[in-house]
């Protein structure tokens, strides 16, 4: 079965700084890969996804992520964070070739941006 690890439970950065949130997955083939964001008292919103092709994918609000098959990773990046980016970020994977769409989530990374 697939699994997802987000090694950083909490990340704190200053506004304007660059950001990387790490995600590693365990799966025998290339899965669907997702990053979701959760603002306080809200549901999850999709930031970006990877299915195939260019390993660097662009998302909303200036976020991007890079897929690395050799490292089994899908790290999220942003060049310059804003205080409003403070939220919980989840990496998720789903198997390809099946119609279930079942997602396996990491435990999440709490991002705090100092104004």
């Amino acid at each position, binding site marked *: 079965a697939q699994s997802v690890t987000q090694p950083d439970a909490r990340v704190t950065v200053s506004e304007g700084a660059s950001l990387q949130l790490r995600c590693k997955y365990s799966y025998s083939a290339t899965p669907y890969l997702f990053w979701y964001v959760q603002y306080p008292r809200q549901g999850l919103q999709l930031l970006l996804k990877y299915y195939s092709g260019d390993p660097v994918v662009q998302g909303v609000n200036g976020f991007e992520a890079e897929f690395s098959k050799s490292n089994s990773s899908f790290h999220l990046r942003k060049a310059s964070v804003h205080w409003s980016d403070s939220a919980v970020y989840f990496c998720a994977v789903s198997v390809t070739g099946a*119609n*279930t*769409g079942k*997602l396996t*989530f990491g435990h999440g990374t709490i991002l705090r941006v100092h104004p």
Partner: protein
Amino acid sequence: EAAVTQSPRNKVAVTGGKVTLSCNQTNNHNNMYWYRQDTGHGLRLIHYSYGAGSTEKGDIPDGYKASRPSQENFSLILELATPSQTSVYFCASGNWGGDYAEQFFGPGTRLTVL
């Protein structure tokens, strides 16, 4: 835009009581999902459905039932609620495959079992 709604948004139940959480989607998606979110665990899949009349067990189905009476509605049922089921529950809908693989989430239901 995709729309998934959940009711109630907050619920306090007693141990041993029956709880029904409801989810409605207006996206005409085939698949629907129920997750629970707990600190330190992320989101875990309880039940899911491929369409009206179908329900499938997810990763943590024990103590939960699901019902999909129509394309739009998907319910999660706790027949005998326990304090360990205190959590935030999220419903999601989505179609799956190729470039349009994605799930859209509702706002969540906060359940407290006393």
